[in-house]
C-alpha cells in the first residue's frame, strides 16, 4: 500500500496542533450530552416527555457521542482512508449482524 508523504506530514501536524484543545472540547461535549440524556430519561420516566420523542432524542445524542469518540479520540478524522475504516469496521458488521439481532423479535 503506497503512502503520500505530504499528507502524512499534514496528519502529523494535525495531531500536534488541533488536537491540543480538541480533546478537552470533545470531553466536555460528551459529559454535557450525558447529563442531558439523564435529564431526558428522567422526564420520560415521569411521563413529562413522549416516549417515542424521548427515544429519538436519546438515540440521536448517543450517535453524536459515538461519532465524537470515533472521529476525535480514535483519530479516524485524521486517517487517509477514514471512509474505508468506517465501512469495514462499523458499516459491514452492522449490516451483517442486524438480521441476526432481530431474530428474537420474530418469534
Amino acid at each position, binding site marked *: *500500500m503506497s503512502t503520500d508523504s505530504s499528507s502524512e506530514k499534514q496528519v502529523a501536524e494535525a495531531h500536534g496542533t488541533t488536537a491540543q484543545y480538541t480533546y478537552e472540547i470533545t470531553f466536555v461535549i460528551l459529559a454535557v450530552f*450525558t447529563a442531558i440524556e439523564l435529564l431526558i430519561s428522567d422526564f420520560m420516566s415521569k411521563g413529562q416527555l413522549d416516549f417515542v420523542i424521548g427515544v429519538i432524542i*436519546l438515540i440521536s445524542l448517543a450517535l453524536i457521542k459515538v461519532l465524537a469518540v470515533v472521529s476525535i479520540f480514535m483519530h479516524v478524522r485524521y486517517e487517509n482512508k477514514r471512509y474505508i475504516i468506517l465501512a469495514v469496521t462499523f458499516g459491514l458488521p452492522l449490516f451483517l*449482524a442486524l438480521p*441476526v439481532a432481530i431474530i*428474537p423479535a420474530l418469534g
Partner: protein
Amino acid sequence: MAEHESISDHEHDIHHVEPSWWPPILALSLGLVGIGIIIIGGGLTLPGLTIPLLDITIIPVITLYDTTIVNIAGVKFGVGLLFIFLFFVIFALGLLAETSPKGYDQSHEKKAHRHEIVPTTGFAKHTWMWFFLASEVLFFTIVIGSSLSLRFRVGSWSPAEVLDVFLTALNTFVLITSSYTMAKGLQAIERGDQRRSAMFIFATVGIGALFLIIQAFEYYELIHIFNFNPANSTGFITLHGHTVQDPNLQIFASTFFLQTGFHGLHVFFGVFIMFFVALKMYRGGYTKENHDSVELIGLYWHFVDLVWIMLFTVVYLI
C-alpha cells in the same frame, strides 16, 4: 538484514513483534470456551433450525457416586479457560521481563537486527486492529440487538424502576474521562514525553478500575440485596422499601447481565493490558518513533467506551 525499497524519507521503522503461537492458541481457546458454554447451556435452537445436544457431550468424565461431576462439555470449557489463563499469565510475564532494564536492551537488540522499512498509512499500520474491532462490532450488535428485540417482543419494561440510572450516569462519566486520559496519553508520546504519557495511561488504568468497582457494587446491590437476577422467577423484587412486579423481570435480568457483563469483561481485559503498556512506558519502552502498542490499546479502549455509550442509552435510559 532484509532489504526493502524505501517509500519516502519520512518513513519510520515498523518494529514487528516476534512470531508467536499464542494468538491462534488464544483464538482456539476462546472457541472451546464458547462451544462449552453453548453445550452446557443445552444446545442451540433458532427458528426453524435446531442443533440438538450431541450424545457425546454428556459423556461423564468424572463421576462421584453415580453423579456426573464433569462431562465432555465441561472439559472443553475448562481446557479453553485454562489456556486463556495461561495466555494472560505468559503475556504479563513477557511484558514484565521486557520492561526490566536488561529485558528492554535484549528486546531492542533483537528488533534492531530485524530492521525493516515498510510502507505505512494509518489504515495499513493498524489494519488488523480495525478488523478485530469489526468482529467486536459484530459481537456487540448481536448481543445488544437481540436483547433489545427480545425486550420489545415480550412487552418491554422500565429500567428506571429497577436500575440506578444516576449511579450509572456517573459511571458513564468515569469511562468518558478514561477515554480522554487515554487520548492525552497517546498525544504525549506523539510529542516524545514518556513520563507524561505514562502518567495519563496509568490514570486511564485507575479510572478503568474505578468503573469496574462501581459496576461490581451495582451488581452486588442488584443480585444480593434486591434479588434482581435471572434465577428469580417470582416476578417480584423489593427495592428501597417498595415492590416492583413485572412478569418479564427474569428476561430483563438475563439480558441486563449479559450485555453489561460482556462489556465489563472487555473493560477488565483492557485495564489488564493497559497496565503493562503503562509500565513499559514508565520504564522508557516507548518512544516518539515507536509507540504502536499505545495506539492499538488506545483504539481498543475508545471502542470499549463507544460500546458503553450505546449500552447506557439502550439498557438504562430507554
